[in-house]
């Protein structure tokens, strides 16, 4: 029987995802571990290709057939029993129950994740009629109610329109309504505002926050924008090339970053109160290909503090603060110190 830490609704342990392609094997996720405390929100942050989306999609098994998943994805059911999602058959009844009913998702591009040939009502009501046994009339009332909740005006009329008649912000609101339709316990939001303008981004993010409070959701927010996670989540996991390199409480990550990559990332963000002509510090080079991972530490080629140990040693996950972990050779051996101080 699997066990989970008290208070966690989801625990991902040593998750590995590989894609078997004709050109070779893509090592998308290489031993990722994170947990989601019930009612809290975590952010998974990283640049394109770091495996943040793949990690989150494997939680609902929404990966293409070429994917090979190993590791544990433990989910605590309402009754308290623990299900290992990674062991469920991909097209079985169990995983379909968990998707939508327990874990809902919001996707990045609302236009490509809503069906263009069905009305908003048809798309929203589908699950209610199929799984919750509602009549069409009941479903309609519930849809209108949800659309009103997410701030769509004239919901009674709008519910019969098609997604193309909605503006970008309204589509994203409709998608949030759809994610909430079956009272999920976990919400996974994958770059929910990347396709939106900055004033809309502010509106949609504050809507997500309101809904999280209202529905007592636990949330995983996937994003590349450090500005967004700074205001949205309780814990942050920084990913690089398929590994979590640092994780901890939001404030701690921003004010006391340990990993050279986290520091580099934080320094390379242009600030609103910058100065004309000032150079922004950048991380040299680019992310290596996930087809052939470098040996040792995956960040070493771009790291300004690399030493010989980084060449062959895969850094262990080391505790450097009460809930602060880092995977970097620089801190190897310091865990005893921390234990002594604590």
């Amino acid at each position: 029987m699997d066990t989970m830490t008290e208070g966690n609704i989801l625990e991902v342990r040593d998750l590995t995802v590989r894609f078997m392609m004709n050109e070779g094997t893509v090592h998308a996720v290489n031993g990722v571990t994170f947990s989601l405390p019930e009612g809290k929100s975590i952010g998974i942050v990283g640049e394109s290709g770091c495996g943040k989306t793949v990690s989150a999609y494997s939680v609902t098994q929404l990966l293409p057939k070429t994917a090979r998943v190993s590791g544990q994805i433990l989910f605590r059911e309402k009754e308290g029993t623990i299900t290992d999602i990674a062991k469920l058959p991909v097209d079985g009844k169990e995983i379909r129950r968990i998707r939508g009913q327990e874990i809902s998702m919001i996707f990045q591009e609302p236009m490509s994740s809503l069906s263009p040939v069905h009305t908003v009502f048809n798309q929203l009501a589908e699950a209610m009629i199929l799984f919750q046994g509602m009549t069409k009339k009941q479903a309609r009332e519930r849809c209108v109610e949800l659309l009103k909740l997410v701030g769509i005006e004239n919901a009674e009329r709008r519910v019969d329109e098609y997604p193309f008649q909605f503006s970008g912000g309204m589509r994203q609101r409709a998608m949030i309504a759809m994610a909430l339709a079956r009272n999920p316990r976990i919400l996974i939001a994958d770059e929910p505002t990347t396709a939106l303008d900055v004033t809309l981004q502010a509106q949609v993010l504050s809507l997500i926050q309101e809904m999280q409070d209202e529905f007592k959701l636990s949330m995983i927010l996937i994003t590349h924008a450090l500005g967004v996670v700074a205001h949205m989540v309780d814990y942050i996991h920084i990913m690089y090339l398929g590994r979590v390199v640092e994780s901890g409480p939001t404030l701690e990550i921003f004010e006391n970053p340990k990993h050279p990559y986290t520091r580099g990332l934080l320094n390379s963000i242009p600030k609103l109160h910058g100065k004309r002509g000032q150079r922004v510090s950048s991380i040299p080079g680019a992310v290596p290909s996930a087809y052939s991972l470098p040996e040792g530490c995956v960040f070493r080629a771009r790291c300004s503090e690399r030493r010989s140990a980084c060449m062959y040693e895969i850094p262990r996950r080391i505790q450097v603060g009460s809930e602060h972990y880092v995977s970097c050779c620089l801190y190897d051996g310091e865990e005893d110190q921390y234990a002594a101080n604590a």
Partner: protein
Amino acid sequence: MPQMPEDTVLQVTNLKKYFPIESGFLRRKVVGNVRAVDGVSFYIKKGRTLGLVGESGCGKTTVARTILRAIDPTEGSILFRTRDGIVDMATLDNEGLKKARTEIQMVFQDPYSSLNPRMPIMDIIAEPLRAHGYSRKDQEERVKELLELVGLRAEYARRYPHSFSGGQRQRIGIARALALNPSVVVADEPVSALDVSVQAQVLNLLLDLQEQMGLTYLFISHDLSVVRYLCDRVAVMYLGRIVELADVDILYGQPRHPYTSTLLSSVPDADPRSAWHAKAIKGEITGPPREVRGCAFAPRCPYAVGICKSTAPELRSISTDESVTHEVACHLAEELELEGVS
């Protein structure tokens, strides 16, 4: 011959671009116009950078494309100082344009679609040189020079675009734009498609090139943080018009248009302790209007009064000091107390 002040390189006056809306099946009739750009005026001095900021659909890209005559303007003049005197880009014939375009060039947003995947880098960068009759040997030499200028190795010239990362591709796009030694570069969202650690590299490159070569930039972006590092003066656009134009520190520090202030406060700063006024503004940007009645921002403006709905405000100077630019199109500019960033 048209006139403009000695140190001005580009002067756009009352630029308009209307796209006709046609209706009817057999006899298509023009039933109205989309006013994508509706009376935009600005100038850029030699060696300086003007930022053009706004959300999607505000007309900033149309301004750029019209200046280079990728599309023809409906009205207005675009005076450009070439080595042989001042020309009006708006009325040049094809031959004149070919000549003028050796001195004004563009960098595009998406480094993946703006480089031909079937051409080696050598040919991509040499294309403008070929069009202007350089010999094969001169082309090769110049390409090598350019690659080194933008921080790539000269051996890369034989490779194809697919073997480069996003940041490297954008460097190639910049090298191509600089091939003919232009005096002005129009950069349309040059870093928006890049990851944050790489974005900083390209921004710094743009700053270095400007210092080395005395380039003049028109920098188009939706990202206010990036604009602050690069621009001397900034123009904020909303639905085809400039609503505020000011020296960079004044625009950020003391915005006088409610839209500018909203944009600034919508950006989530990468600091969990900073306040973030997420719900500052309602509604979203509509499509460009067919006709103008009153201020285009009035429907979303929290301060709108009667006059805003009936009379469109003109862009007027509110600066008391002649050396300082500060123009704003708002009836209430003097009365409102708006928040900026330091």
